[in-house]
């Protein structure tokens, strides 16, 4: 490795990126906008009352009972049986109520938690209206909106993982293939630049470019939403660096053979799609069916988001975080090794 050569290549790669304003937007602007929108959408605000349709041929007592005894946890509308059914299907209401106050009939979608909740709320209102002892009188309800338990606290780690995956796939994978299809790789291959020097300089510059966006997302989460970091900052930064390198390795691997932007796009989708769906970016992947769990666990994205959340939210012990880090490192090293073997200069 000669510093002179590394410097020349690194400088070129950095400038090439910084002169592409749209790339800068997609790496910085996009995740921040996403954090903002999703943070608010699933964050602050009071719980919405359950929406319930009452079939219009039901006795007036049924509607009155719901209206008066639901403590504003339910908003009821009357509609025809057919309208009510339609509204349920479209998700405009969570529950359809008909029948007598003493023997109510509920139409609901058992897969929707909102439906079950609405049923409980309506049942409770009807019990109270019938003079029953308040079934929940002895219970205390404490709403949870503390930092650490909100969606945004969960989301930030996922957004960082998604960003690093994008940096590896596009920043490295796509760019390398473009250099190959422009025959720029061959042009460089006939200079005395050693191949390892080029790859090192390229990865170094892309890593430099990939690190600031996760830090920006993290800072945004902390300052805009008060997202906590309960664990060690050093471990957190170390894990981000490790994630950057692992996804860089995967990016180099998808780019090792492809000759055209079309073919590399296919490979990128093949890697990206499952990670978006199963990698625990937007929602927890713990409860996916057993059948896909081996795949879920093998994914570097799962290791990364688990590790990040373990550190940020303090939900994992150091042993589990170390396991995630090792899993990530193994995938990264295997990718690099395979990419170097397969890499095509021509």
């Amino acid at each position, binding site marked *: 490795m000669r510093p002179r050569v590394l*410097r020349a290549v690194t400088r070129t790669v950095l400038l*090439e990126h910084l002169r592409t304003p749209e790339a800068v937007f997609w790496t910085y602007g996009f995740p921040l906008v996403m954090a903002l929108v999703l943070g608010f959408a699933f964050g602050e605000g009071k719980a919405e009352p359950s929406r319930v349709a009452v079939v219009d041929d039901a006795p007036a007592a049924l509607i009155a009972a719901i209206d008066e005894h639901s403590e504003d946890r339910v908003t009821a509308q009357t509609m025809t049986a057919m309208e009510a059914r339609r509204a349920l299907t479209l998700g405009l209401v969570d529950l359809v109520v008909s029948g007598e106050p003493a023997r109510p009939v509920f139409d609901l979608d058992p897969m929707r938690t909102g439906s079950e909740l609405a049923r409980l709320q309506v049942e409770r209102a009807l019990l109270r209206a019938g003079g029953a002892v308040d079934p929940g009188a002895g219970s205390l309800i404490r709403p949870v909106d503390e930092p650490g338990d909100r969606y945004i606290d969960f989301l930030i780690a996922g957004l960082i993982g998604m960003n690093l995956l994008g940096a590896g796939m596009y920043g490295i994978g796509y760019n390398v293939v473009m250099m190959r299809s*422009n025959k720029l790789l061959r042009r460089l291959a*006939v*200079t005395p630049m050693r191949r390892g020097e080029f790859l090192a300089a390229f990865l170094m510059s892309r890593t430099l470019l990939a690190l600031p966006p996760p830090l920006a997302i993290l800072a945004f989460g902390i300052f805009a939403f008060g997202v906590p970091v309960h664990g060690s900052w050093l471990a957190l930064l170390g894990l981000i660096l490790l994630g950057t390198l692992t996804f860089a390795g995967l990016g180099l691997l998808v780019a090792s053979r492809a000759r055209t932007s079309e073919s590399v796009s296919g490979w990128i989708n093949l890697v990206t799609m499952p990670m978006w769906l199963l990698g625990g970016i937007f929602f927890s992947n713990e409860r996916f069916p057993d059948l896909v769990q081996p795949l879920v666990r093998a994914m570097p994205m799962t290791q990364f988001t688990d590790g990040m959340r373990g550190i940020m939210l303090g939900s994992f012990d150091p042993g589990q975080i170390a396991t995630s880090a090792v899993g990530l490192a193994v995938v990264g090293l295997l990718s690099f090794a395979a990419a170097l073997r397969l890499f095509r200069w021509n």
Partner: protein
Amino acid sequence: MSRAAHGGRGPAIRLAGLRKVYTTRGRPPVVAVDGLDLTVERGEIFGLLGPNGAGKTTTVEICEGLLDATEGVVEVLGMDWGGDAEQIRARIGVSLQDTRLFEKQTVAELCALFAGLYEPSRSVEELIALVQLEEKADTRYAHLSGGQRQRLAVATALAGRPELLFLDEPTTGLDPQSRRSLWDVIRAYRDEDGGTVVLTTHYMEEAAQLCDRVMVVDHGRSIALGSPAELIAGLGAAHVVEARAPGLAARVDGGVLEGIEGILERHANGDRLHLSVTAPHVVLPGILRAFERAGVELEALTTRHTSLEDVFVHLTGRQLRDGGES
């Protein structure tokens, strides 16, 4: 002080029995280079001339170390790609066909990139001056014209003061003025730095104007080798007469020109006739009389000096331009 000026001993390139066969599964193997022998001396501008698909680029890329030979000896500056790859790369300069450099870098930055890859190297200013791109020094690659990109490609190839410069179709697609200005750069490199140049081209005029020696390549084989003047003289005819008339080839094959002295060779195809002659003023009256007798209505008649194009036609029976492989 240029390294090229001290040079070394022995030829710049020596190829012996070079063969390159491309094998793709499920398809018959393609022989791109079929037993080529070639020695390029130091300090000469050597041209590989031939139609597209003749094997020129394959030959050059084997010399550049980008492709492996299937068989044969390849020596570059007395060294072997097997053992001395890095040394060879440090001493050659290369401009490949249809390469696109980094789009968002300026001319000066791209020169700096390539200068950074060689030790010792030319300065950025020197490189830009060599190819006269001073006015474009701060223009990004994406905004350069085809001719400017080609000149820049040659500048990057000169970054390491190479002893041997490979240029693969350096002037394809350029206007005549850009072409001539690139020729000047190439000549200056040879004359002032004492460098050796190997270039490929399918422009006969380029080979004739620029090259000290050319090898005419067709179907991966050498079909002629020598200076442009020697090759033309080898035809024994200094001039060419070309005529066009409806159905001319059939009439000529029917014997219209029999008995006219001084026609060395003829090729007829459709409406066109191509004659090699020693002296047009001696031959033309006879030809015109013969046509008149046969009632041939000429649409065009031209005479010119024999060119390398005629050498190619003589050797292959085909025009250079339509000689491309499928």
